[in-house]
């Protein structure tokens, strides 16, 4: 068995490390630092690793293989995929480094590392259909983090488990059904069935409207820090996996109606997310709608892959992660400083007077996700809005409604944060600044990063366009 392979470094090693972290989970700080160090090293290594996998160290050359064979099946991580791997481990690092501050589960470091390694394996496994079972394993591991200690298991987590389990057979059956039908005419019934099964499977996985009902329920009960990490990883990895499937199978990408179907699914999901967000009165649930809207944008971008959607997708990955990080960090920090805040609008009234930087950070992260000019996601969203409007006028009013819904929620939140209700129990708290210098620094730094991403996308975001190099059939090099 050849162990000098890329999957050994970025899949097997982190899995072994996560097992070690499970063994030392009682030493919480040590396990967090080890998870941070491991994730950072893996991210940096993936980023600087030569594309031809020929690594030189101390005058010696080490040629790594990109394929790890296991029971006649393979895990393949090519040089061009390593940027995606670097990004996933960077996310793991970012969530672990700040996780120390919040009272999340002791298992977070080990499970987050295992989840990252398993998501990398879904992108590496060949044939692709085995990824369905790996995703199911990730879901089963995730639910341990998503259920808060000392509370009854909520129906959100159960629906999540059911929904993701039902998705698995769709992907497995589609893989079996279309095996070796590359040469069949595109109108073949088998191809049509296979395509429908794959799309339903992805719709269940990604919580595409109307299959999203579990998401707000889960967000309400889970810790925002854990929820944002798990669903950022899921959203990012599954979107890249969908691109990989489309790139790999000509029968799927050449089937008439696949890309328009993806466009409509994306538009309807972000419309539903926007409209439902506008009606919310609990900030904990908003994270679910934000993820839903961003999933809608990702699917729309994949649907518009021939009209610049690919670039928009790649440009959105880092700013989106940063916005989720900022929102969940701020919300977790607020709930840690004032534990009586339960996430309802009533409990947040007048918060600006007590925690001005936190309140501003909440609003900035939402404005970033809305696509406000000068913030990180604007370049990607502008491309999508233009591409969507250029393709058909049907999308424009729906996209406008979705953005308006989100904007309405932000205005309501600003009003709540600024208004002091004399009857509110939180009003009885002494009006004093409880924000530490460190918290203020972190929140200001993240806001500054978001601004830099938005103002200088060509410097900070253009390197992410390299993620698309893997998809040579879908986006042929010009």
């Amino acid at each position, binding site marked *: 068995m050849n162990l000098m392979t890329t999957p050994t470094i970025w899949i097997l090693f982190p899995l072994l490390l996560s097992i070690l972290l499970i063994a030392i989970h009682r030493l919480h700080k040590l396990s967090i630092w080890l998870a941070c160090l491991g994730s950072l090293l893996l991210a940096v290594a993936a980023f600087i690793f030569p594309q031809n996998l020929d690594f030189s160290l101390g005058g010696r050359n080490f040629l790594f293989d990109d394929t790890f064979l296991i029971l*006649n*099946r393979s895990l393949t991580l090519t040089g061009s995929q390593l940027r995606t791997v670097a990004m996933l481990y960077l996310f793991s690092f970012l969530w672990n480094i700040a996780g120390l501050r919040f009272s999340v589960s002791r298992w977070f470091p080990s499970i987050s590392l295992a989840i990252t390694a398993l998501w990398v394996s879904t992108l590496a496994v060949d044939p692709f259909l085995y990824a369905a*079972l790996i995703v199911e394993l990730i879901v089963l591991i995730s639910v341990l983090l998503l259920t808060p200690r*000392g509370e*009854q*298991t909520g129906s959100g987590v159960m629906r999540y488990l059911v929904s993701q389990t039902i998705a698995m057979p769709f992907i497995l059956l589609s893989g079996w059904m279309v095996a070796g039908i590359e040469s069949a005419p595109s109108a073949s019934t088998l191809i049509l069935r296979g395509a429908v099964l794959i799309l339903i499977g992805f719709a269940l996985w990604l919580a595409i409207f109307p299959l999203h009902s579990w998401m707000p329920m889960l967000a309400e009960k889970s810790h925002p820090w854990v929820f944002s990490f798990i669903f950022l990883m899921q959203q990012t990895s599954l979107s890249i996996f969908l691109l990989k499937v489309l790139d790999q199978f000509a029968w799927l990408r050449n089937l008439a109606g696949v890309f328009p179907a993806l466009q409509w699914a994306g538009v309807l999901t972000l419309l539903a997310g926007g409209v439902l967000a506008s009606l919310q009165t609990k900030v904990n649930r908003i994270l679910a709608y934000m993820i839903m809207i961003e999933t809608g944008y990702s699917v729309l971008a994949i649907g518009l892959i021939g009209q610049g959607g690919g670039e928009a997708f790649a440009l959105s990955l880092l700013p989106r992660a940063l916005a989720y990080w900022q929102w969940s960090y701020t919300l977790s920090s607020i709930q840690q400083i004032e534990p009586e805040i339960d996430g309802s609008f009533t409990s947040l009234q007048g918060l600006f007077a007590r925690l001005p930087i936190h309140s501003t950070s909440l609003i900035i992260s939402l404005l970033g996700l809305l696509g406000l000019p000068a913030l990180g996601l604007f370049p990607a969203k502008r491309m999508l809005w233009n591409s969507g409007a250029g393709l058909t006028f049907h999308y424009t009013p729906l996209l406008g409604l979705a953005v308006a819904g989100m904007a309405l929620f932000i205005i309501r939140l600003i009003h709540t944060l600024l208004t002091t209700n004399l009857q509110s129990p939180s009003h009885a708290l002494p009006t004093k600044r409880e924000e530490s210098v460190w918290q203020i620094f972190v929140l200001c730094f993240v806001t500054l990063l978001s601004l830099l991403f938005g103002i200088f996308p060509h410097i900070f975001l253009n390197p992410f366009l390299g993620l698309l190099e893997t998809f040579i059939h879908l986006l042929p090099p010009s």
Partner: protein
Amino acid sequence: MNETLRTITVVVLLLATAINLVRRQWAINILALGLQYICFFLIILDVRSPLLAAIKLIVGLMVTLMLYLTVVSSGLIESLLRPQRPTAGEVFRGTIALLLVLISFLAGAGLQQSAFPQSSQLLLTASLGLILFGLFQMGTITEPLYLVIGLLTFLSGFELLYASLEFSRVLEALFTAVNLSLALVGSYFIVKDVESRSA
């Protein structure tokens, strides 16, 4: 195994699954789950070698044992012999169970013709029955034990179907891992529920 024995096995399998859907008595449900895995083993022998089929049986019985031990340690298990009059819910679920069995037997042939010609009709009936019962159980119940039984039933149905279509050792290993993890998650949910009730 001759056709009559295979038919009897499928009937017993669907009966055990129906008991899990209809009856809400933990001891009976766990026994029915064990019986379900034994019948599953006998049916999957048609498409798998005895050794591979035995692995499925062992995993199934381990899953059942894990759930049984969790339920026993939580102190919530009731006597098997406790008399209990059928409730309106049980009568409703019983009617649904009859309907699902009927659908499974009627749809087996059609499914074989239209989508899975290489699978036997009885296997398809068993598989469809398990999938339908599992889906119905998952859709109507929020109690952790029944939800996990529903998920395991659904997975068994799909495993049975997939076993008749394709064979891969990696896939078998992954299915085993998923089944065991599901049982662990189920046990975790049950323990959490008991803890939160006693808190």
